[in-house]
């Protein structure tokens, strides 16, 4: 299959495609809602037909004919191969059955440690400048998934030498720290941002710049990272989305809930229509 790249795509569509490319055929993917789920679905509908999505609520392997609106949305149950309980799903992850986990956060450091709990600001954990939702399942994914893909926007206030609070461990303080702490999962494989992709040094486990998105310069990236960033000898340009990936993304998220401004001004009638239509169109994809 020769790859035809898209010329016309949004940044969100590139992120979906980049996430999809991290997934291999046969992977079990612990997918959060939004770009990760879209990425997993795009992977399943292109190069990885045997992907199994695991949803936190306890649904395994859904094949919905509509966009997934939450980790416990009914879409997660639709045509799934197993619906079970939360503790069982996470236990399966701890047992090593989940190949990829996709998580985001507000801050990340050079060892891929993520913070989605609190921004201290002038305060501390107990009197924070900003309270975030917390770990949810992110810590467990970071602990036990075979590998993790981190996604967050590239901004200097987010890419820090040291995060305020480690919600989800990456490589902690580098080298074999994960093994020392007894973490069963493999740790972060990549950080995907709106400007570039980072990967990790196999020995030191420090993040380095692996590729820049089309049109982005290395200097632009360095300017948004708080630590002395290491750069790959041969920095690549991030592979753009293929025509097929963009086409499928637009079908999956026809209402632009995740890839546009679909949430704004969404009336009940438009919403019902969006779902009803998606069912018809998605039947063509499966």
């Amino acid at each position, binding site marked *: 299959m020769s790859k035809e790249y898209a010329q016309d795509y949004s940044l969100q569509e590139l992120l979906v495609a980049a996430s999809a490319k991290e997934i291999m055929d046969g992977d079990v993917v612990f997918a959060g809602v939004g770009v990760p789920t879209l990425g997993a679905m795009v992977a399943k509908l292109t190069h990885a037909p045997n992907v199994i999505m695991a949803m936190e609520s306890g649904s395994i392997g859904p094949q919905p004919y509509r966009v997934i609106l939450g980790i416990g949305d009914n879409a997660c149950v639709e045509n799934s191969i197993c619906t079970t309980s939360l503790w069982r799903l996470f236990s399966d992850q*701890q047992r090593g059955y989940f190949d990829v986990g996709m998580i985001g956060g507000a801050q990340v450091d050079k060892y891929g440690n993520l913070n989605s709990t609190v921004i201290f600001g002038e305060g501390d954990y107990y009197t*924070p400048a900003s309270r975030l*939702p917390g770990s949810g399942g992110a810590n*467990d994914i970071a602990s036990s998934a075979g590998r993790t893909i981190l996604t967050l926007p590239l901004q200097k206030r987010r890419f820090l030498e040291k995060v305020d609070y480690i919600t989800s461990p990456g490589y902690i303080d580098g080298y074999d720290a994960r093994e020392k702490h007894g973490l069963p999962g493999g740790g972060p494989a990549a950080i995907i941002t709106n400007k570039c992709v980072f990967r990790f040094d196999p020995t030191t486990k420090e993040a380095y710049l692996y590729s820049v998105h089309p049109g982005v310069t290395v200097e632009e990236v360095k300017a948004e990272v708080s630590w002395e960033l290491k750069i790959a000898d041969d920095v690549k340009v991030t592979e753009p989305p293929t025509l097929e990936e963009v086409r499928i993304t637009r079908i999956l998220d026809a209402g632009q809930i995740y890839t546009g401004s679909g949430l704004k001004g969404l009336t009940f009638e438009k919403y019902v229509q969006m779902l009803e239509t998606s069912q018809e169109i998605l039947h063509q994809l499966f």
Partner: protein
Amino acid sequence: MININPNDKKKPDKRMTLTDAIKTYVPDGSMISFSGMGGAQCVAPTYEIIRQGIKKLTFVGDSPCESGDMLIGAGAIKKAEIAWCSYAVAGLGYNYRRAIEQKIPHEIELVEYSNYTIGLRFLAGAINVPYIPTKSLMGSDLLKYNEKIKVEEDPYNGEKVALIPAVNPDIAIVHVSRADKRGNAQMFGFSSNAENLARAAKHTIVTCEEIVSTEEIQRHPNLTIIPEYAVDAVVEVPFASHPWNFPYAYAYDMPFHTEQLAAFKTREGFEKWLEDYCFAPGSWEGYLEKVGYGRLEKLRQLERRFTKAKY
């Protein structure tokens, strides 16, 4: 603290109204937990607890939405032992943030876990052991701020494990697809931590979309996730998860939820919402009336296009 008839679990007919069930089993100061994850949330019981003005609850749960954020906003919660509090796609946990950042309406005590380790707390409580070991949380700051989690080398292989303490809430509220009047509860689709919550708690209220006969339960015994001996009360509450989805029953009402969350952004907006949707309607039936049964029926029809329980 709770002084409830210990023989309630033996009653052959446990049907109650939602109002009575909350009044009987949720006194001020209780430790409480709810089922649901993403969808299938216990929204109706949350509104009822707020209406009854119950206070000083200790809340134990994985990733609460309404049950955590709204109860915090309503000033019902003294302490929260949770992993996450927000609303996913439709908006953030504004009440939770206001409580932590600005102590509005008042300060709450917070003890953090992850979703899995909250699940293990319920599992340990359900099987009546003091803790269950895990490999989650290692190397994270959750350990630093939660002194109840102990890290040990296991006595078999010297592996590092975190011990997650059991929890036995005073009361669990579990919302399921259907149940009989004795309390045999069946769920279509994912079941979050419902099966362990119900067993971990000292007392358990099962709310269900539909009460069915025991004969109907007996036709599909594999679907029973909670047997009657773990249940104190059974309450039929259709659409109890609105605006959330419920598997095989009704679709997510995202436009409604988006509007709700927009209101929650300010304290005034939240208070007005409580007045309009919780207090003024006076009951869950009143809430549904206000949402509109036509809209609810549309959500049910919408879901049927996609999934229909084939049991």
